[in-house]
């Protein structure tokens, strides 16, 4: 399974999206699905860089991407701050522009774009995110 270690810096988001897109295209995913996968991977990586590794210099994290049958699986493993998705409040999509909260949108989009989003946080091995999406 292709695994790449990326520095925890926003400048590498482009490469992460390209890594996922290439494997998705080879796996027969259409343009709309490829865009969704890129966006989900970007939001996940952004959360790791912004939150898990907040204030940590020279950190990195592992990304894998693999297609089996009609399902693409992305994993991201980091050793940053433990993450519990239950602590992230859902954005209120009905709120007007003044009440609209800015946080939580990344995780919300990931769940909408992917079929399954799963986090395991372990003090020894760090955070492991697994996301899957089936092609149409």
């Amino acid at each position, binding site marked *: 399974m292709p695994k790449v270690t990326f520095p925890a810096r926003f400048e590498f*988001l482009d490469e992460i999206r390209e890594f996922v897109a290439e494997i998705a295209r080879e796996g027969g995913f259409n343009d709309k699905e490829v*865009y969704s996968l*890129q*966006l989900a991977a970007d939001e996940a990586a952004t959360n790791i860089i912004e939150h898990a590794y907040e204030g940590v210099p020279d950190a990195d994290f592992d990304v894998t991407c693999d297609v089996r049958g009609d399902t693409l699986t992305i994993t991201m493993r980091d050793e940053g701050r433990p993450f519990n998705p239950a602590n992230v409040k859902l954005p209120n999509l009905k709120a007007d*522009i003044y009440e609209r909260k*800015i946080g939580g949108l990344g995780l919300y989009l990931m769940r909408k*774009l992917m079929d399954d989003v799963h986090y395991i946080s372990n003090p020894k091995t760090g955070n492991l995110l697994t996301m899957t999406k089936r092609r149409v």
Partner: protein
Amino acid sequence: MEVTTQEFKHCDLITVKGRVDSSTAPAFNKALEKSNEKGCFKIAVDMSGLEYMSSAGFRALLASQRNCKRYNRGELVLVAVPVRIREALELAGFTELFKTFDDPIAAVGSF
């Protein structure tokens, strides 16, 4: 990402091209803030050349819409939103927050 600002009599037309993510969103945000800082609260954002926008870009748009709407008839509108980006904005529940136009002339003329 490339961002340029054209000044019109009643509004600014900000054209953003390429990809807006957490790496490039700060520069996009700065262009939006600059218009507000010089007293312009009517902004049209031309997205026809935009390939990609993550929630970091959505946040910049939302923050700017807030700033614009504080002023009488101030508003940020979107122009020529590519289909993939429109779908993502819909998922995020952002489409109701922004008027959209098909071309920049119509958007500029609306102010």
